[in-house]
């Protein structure tokens, strides 16, 4: 696309056409005192070399995830992304992630999306998955909206051990819909009476596994209770690698499963872009948001891939679309899919095992430190530790010692005094034995 700047004549013509004599008139609705009447106060122009040097100096003040023993999780996990992933996603065939409306020229992208959907449906234990959502939290919000469309009820019951940022996104989205959210009090141990809250108004119950504090649960009983009231069970997964080791949400009876797919292929990326996963049962496929890719046969009987059920979507039925979540994380789905393909089922299971084994070792070693308590009865690769003092300053002191020791829970619950000593510790395959030694040693020093 060429960039053609407007000439003064162009501007004059446009202003004349809409009957305005000067461009300032377009801003006449803005109160005078709100208008800026002098130049913006910016530093004078610097050379490119100077700017680069400044930014290098700023960057050097960071302690980056890859430069230190790293134990931070809380919904985004540092995993090793094989070099093959980056090489593959940069191939020209994949360089546009734009929605492939024309199947005749987009078979490569469509096939990749179809395989992504298949992988997501398999790990979640569900019938059908879409491709894809922005990220885990927006996928969770979409799941709540979908449950209302299906049940024609409005009340969503949200677990107190769901990731607090997911709760925020659900609240933000449902502020503009008819949904009503009932947020449970924080449940550090994952124990809460959700079953007792389900009534005839309930559209869905939203839970997370492993939950925000790392606890693992089997939601089979909850699923039964939810279904008895003709409501839906939504299970959120923020660490998909866990599914290589634990029972899938589908096996527990979930109706909608959403997740964050960042752990596979995507990397931490400074917090985004990530990739939202979304899967459901076949019977609900028409109420599912987002794009679906299907496999079919062409006129010659050859296998081909196409977008399907598009009449639910906003490019055909704008105001009646199942959702107006209107873009996708195409390149991240591709990265996820390539990473998953490289692992295969055996590799995926092995990766999960390594994560859990390392986490178990660290949990035992931390629990042996004076004044340190591991709160979880169960966990996958992340657990909650109670320190003898506030966790946030401890983490700062660990940073001074070159260790990124975990996520202070107070970071996400700044006003809850009862949580200020809690530290979330995540351990993945990227943590070496030396890294574990370093954390245990430095934490011991800091707590002295």
């Amino acid at each position, binding site marked *: 696309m060429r960039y053609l700047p407007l000439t003064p004549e162009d501007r004059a013509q446009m202003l004349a056409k809409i009957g305005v004599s000067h461009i300032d008139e377009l801003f006449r609705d803005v109160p005078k005192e709100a208008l800026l009447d002098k130049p913006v106060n910016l530093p004078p122009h610097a050379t490119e070399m100077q700017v680069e040097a400044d930014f290098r100096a700023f960057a050097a003040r960071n302690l980056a995830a890859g430069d230190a023993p790293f134990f931070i999780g809380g919904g985004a996990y540092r995993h090793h992304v094989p070099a093959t992933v980056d090489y593959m996603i940069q191939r020209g065939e994949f360089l546009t992630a734009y929605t492939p409306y024309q199947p005749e020229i987009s078979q490569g992208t469509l096939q990749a999306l179809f395989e992504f959907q298949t992988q997501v449906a398999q790990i979640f234990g569900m019938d059908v998955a879409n491709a894809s959502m922005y990220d885990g939290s927006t996928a969770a919000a979409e799941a709540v909206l979908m449950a209302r469309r299906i049940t*024609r009820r409005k009340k969503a019951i949200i677990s107190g051990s769901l990731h607090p940022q997911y709760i925020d996104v659900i609240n933000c989205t449902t502020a503009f819909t008819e949904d009503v959210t009932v947020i449970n009090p924080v449940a550090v141990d994952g124990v809460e009476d959700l079953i007792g809250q389900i009534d005839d108004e309930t559209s869905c119950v939203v839970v997370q596994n492993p939950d925000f504090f790392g606890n693992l649960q089997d939601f089979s009983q909850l699923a039964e209770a939810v279904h008895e009231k003709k409501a839906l069970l939504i299970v959120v997964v923020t660490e998909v690698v866990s599914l290589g080791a634990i029972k899938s949400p589908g096996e527990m009876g979930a109706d909608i499963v959403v997740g964050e797919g960042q752990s596979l292929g995507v990397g931490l990326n400074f917090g985004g872009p990530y990739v939202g996963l979304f899967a459901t049962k076949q019977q609900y496929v*028409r109420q599912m948001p987002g794009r679906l890719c299907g496999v079919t046969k062409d006129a010659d009987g050859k296998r081909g891939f196409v977008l399907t059920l598009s*009449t*639910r979507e906003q490019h*055909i*039925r704008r105001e*009646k679309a199942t959702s107006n979540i209107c873009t996708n994380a195409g390149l991240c789905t591709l990265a996820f899919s390539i990473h998953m393909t490289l692992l295969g089922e055996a590799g995926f299971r092995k990766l999960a095992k390594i994560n859990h084994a390392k986490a178990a070792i660290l949990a035992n070693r931390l629990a042996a430190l004076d004044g340190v308590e591991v709160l979880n009865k169960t966990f996958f690769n992340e657990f909650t530790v109670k320190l003898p003092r506030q966790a946030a300053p401890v983490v700062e002191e660990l940073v001074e010692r070159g260790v990124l020791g975990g996520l202070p829970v107070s970071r996400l619950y700044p006003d809850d005094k009862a949580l200020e000593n809690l530290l979330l510790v995540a351990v993945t395959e990227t943590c070496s034995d030396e890294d574990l030694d370093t954390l245990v040693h430095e934490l011991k020093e800091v707590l002295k």
Partner: protein
Amino acid sequence: MTTYYTDEHEWIRVDGEIGTVGITDYAQEALGDIVFVELPEVGATHKKGDEAAVVESVKAASEIYAPVDGEVTEVNDALEGEPALVNSSAEADGWFYKVKITNTADLEGLMDADAYKKFVEGLN
């Protein structure tokens, strides 16, 4: 029994206080292969003009509007497994739902078969 037609291409066949609602042959022809019909819930009440159902073809998804005020008494479950019934038999086996008509005056503004035929000819 009398059948009435709307300018949105729904028909309603009235038998006493019960009306059977569907879309016209003209409508199914215009929509093309129908792949899904989202039916209302039994017991739902509609005002005339409310969105009562959605019909989805390979080309588009369209709303079906209630031709009269009333309460849904029955839906055509056969459409769930075989939406193509709407194509093959739009004005008989492909009916959508039955409604208990609460306000018979609603029928007065609708077209009879002849008027609808002329209306459709005017569209072509």
